[in-house]
């Protein structure tokens, strides 16, 4: 609904600007403009996007490259101060990824299963997202395909969503993030943000729209291929019974972070 109203606004704005010119020009331009907004036929679509993280595989480079690529293509600033850090995807140890599930006696198993590498963490794109529920402006919203998105132009920076998220997946831009981006490194394909707005992982919605899988999943495959191992990250339509992620969830016992809270996270972990 929001997207369509924005489209209408752009249409009206475009028409009124072009209205200054001749009628013929208006007609042809307006037709051209509406065509530009039709979805890309290459776009990847799903009923319900989800991710499976196969921790047994173990990432050869400790997930460094995937984090690096994600943050680069989304213009996420690199801020050394942990208080102001912006994180879309990051790692933490088992006992912090799944608090309360650790025990003295399971330590060895975790150690062996994870081969000492920490767990990759990102927004869970919950089916029942508390961040969306608490947002007073609908700046964060859930798409039909399950992706929980941010509208950086609407967010008022109240940080209710950060209090609402049980996974620490959201970051505020405490200062101007552009100060931390070198102009030559800025990706023009994705917007940079202003200070005072919240951001987080968007399951690479902008890539799905042009037929590409999320960048972390793509790079994970490449890294694994190079090292001759299995990839950690898998992505697909969990509603599709034949999809790879559904197949993995069927074949293995999976756990989700804090599933008891009822937010229905859509990132599944195999240990």
């Amino acid at each position, binding site marked *: 609904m929001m997207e369509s109203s924005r489209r209408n606004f752009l249409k009206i704005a475009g028409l009124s600007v072009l209205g200054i010119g001749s009628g013929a020009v208006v007609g042809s331009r307006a037709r051209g403009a509406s065509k530009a907004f039709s979805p890309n036929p290459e776009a990847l679509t799903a009923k319900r996007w989800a991710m499976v993280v196969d921790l047994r595989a173990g990432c050869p480079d400790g997930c460094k490259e995937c984090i690096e690529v994600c943050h680069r293509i989304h213009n996420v600033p690199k801020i050394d101060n*942990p208080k102001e850090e912006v994180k879309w995807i990051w790692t933490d140890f088992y006992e912090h990824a799944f*608090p309360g599930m650790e025990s003295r006696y399971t330590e060895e198993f975790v150690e062996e299963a994870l081969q000492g590498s920490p767990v990759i963490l990102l927004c869970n794109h919950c089916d029942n997202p508390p961040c969306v529920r608490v947002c007073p402006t609908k700046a964060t919203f859930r798409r039909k395909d399950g992706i929980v998105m941010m509208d950086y132009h609407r967010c008022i920076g109240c940080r209710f969503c950060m209090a609402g998220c049980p*996974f620490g997946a959201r*970051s505020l*831009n405490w200062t101007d993030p552009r100060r931390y981006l070198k102009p030559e490194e800025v990706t023009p394909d994705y917007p940079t943000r*202003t200070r005072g707005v919240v951001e987080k992982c968007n399951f690479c919605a902008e890539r799905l729209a042009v037929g590409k899988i999320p960048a972390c999943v793509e790079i994970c495959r490449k890294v694994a291929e190079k090292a001759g191992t299995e990839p950690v990250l898998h992505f697909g339509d969990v509603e599709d019974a034949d999809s790879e992620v559904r197949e993995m969830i069927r074949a293995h016992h999976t756990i989700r972070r804090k599933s008891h809270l009822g937010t229905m996270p859509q990132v599944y972990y195999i240990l």
Partner: protein
Amino acid sequence: MIEKALVGSRRYWGWVALLLVLMGIGFLFYLRQLSYGLGITGMSRDVSWGLYIAQFTFLVGVAASAVMLVLPYYLHNYKVFGRITILGEFLAVASVLMCLTFIIVDLGRPDRAFNVLLYPSPNSILFWDMIVLNGYLFLNILVGWTVLGAERKGVKPPKWVKPFIYISIPWAISIHTVTAFIYAGLPGRSFWLTAIMAPRFLSSAFASGPALLILACFILRKFTRFDPGREAIQTLAKIVTYAMAISIFFVLMELFTAFYSKVPEHVYHFKYLFVGLDGHTTLVPWWWAFMVLSVLSLILLFNPKTRNNDAILGVACAAVFISLWIEKGLGLVVTGFIPNPLDRVFEYSPTWPEVLITLGVWSMGFLVMTILYKVAVSVKEEGAGEAAH
């Protein structure tokens, strides 16, 4: 009537000037915050609400000063409160104004604040809080000003104002309940996820608001010819006593549930307050100060001998106010974020700019309170003068 605030003694103008200076300092630092961002504060991605939201939360409570007077006076015809009801209402006006200012000051993009109106989201508690707070502000200005205006003319308040007075009573309950719901409905924050959050807010509000009102009455009695009346103050003191007792009782209930059930995510937060967590102890002295002051205040308030002594009552009210400021302000908001959802401890302490901005907002509130009280007291002094003739 506002012209009454434009004449006053040197002491009055000195106080106003002091508040204006503090407001000015706060405003200058706020301009810096606007250009630099909220990074100027001590808040972080882990403790994402701090002093500002804590003040807002506490001051919603202080605004309850009005209902504790309006209810006995208008609903039970308790005439003793007749002289000071206006003071309760005007204190509520100043408190709610501070609340709203603290929310604006806390926004990352205050220029977009009106998005809350442009895209109304009834699923968000913040949306409802905006409605109840603005509504309560409106009700108290309307009722207070109209009733005072009638008093000045020596006539009865107009009939149309009655429904607004009656609405303001449940409305007062709503501001505490809705503000509590901001916290009590979040799945991942076990410190706040408690059904007695709203009752806790109500009980502490009914203690902190009237406590400040008693202190204000003492100040007015000392510096003006206005006398709130001994019985009014003593009744207020009893309200503070029982509200404070219930408030502390509720905190003890939380402690039992956490420490007897031993569910880690409930225990950790209280452990952080009492002894610190993983060697992080910033809030520990504050929490102990809260406990000492609250016990002290209860002893002084329950004992009729000490409660009947105005000087000691003043001390007890200050203890109530400060201890609840620590509990509702610092303790409740900040501790909810410690430890963070990933079971890591990141502490919070405010920065100087943050403290000065906070002080500026408080000064704004006290200025509004001073001006409104000046008007109210002048009208009452005038009335008393005429009655004497």
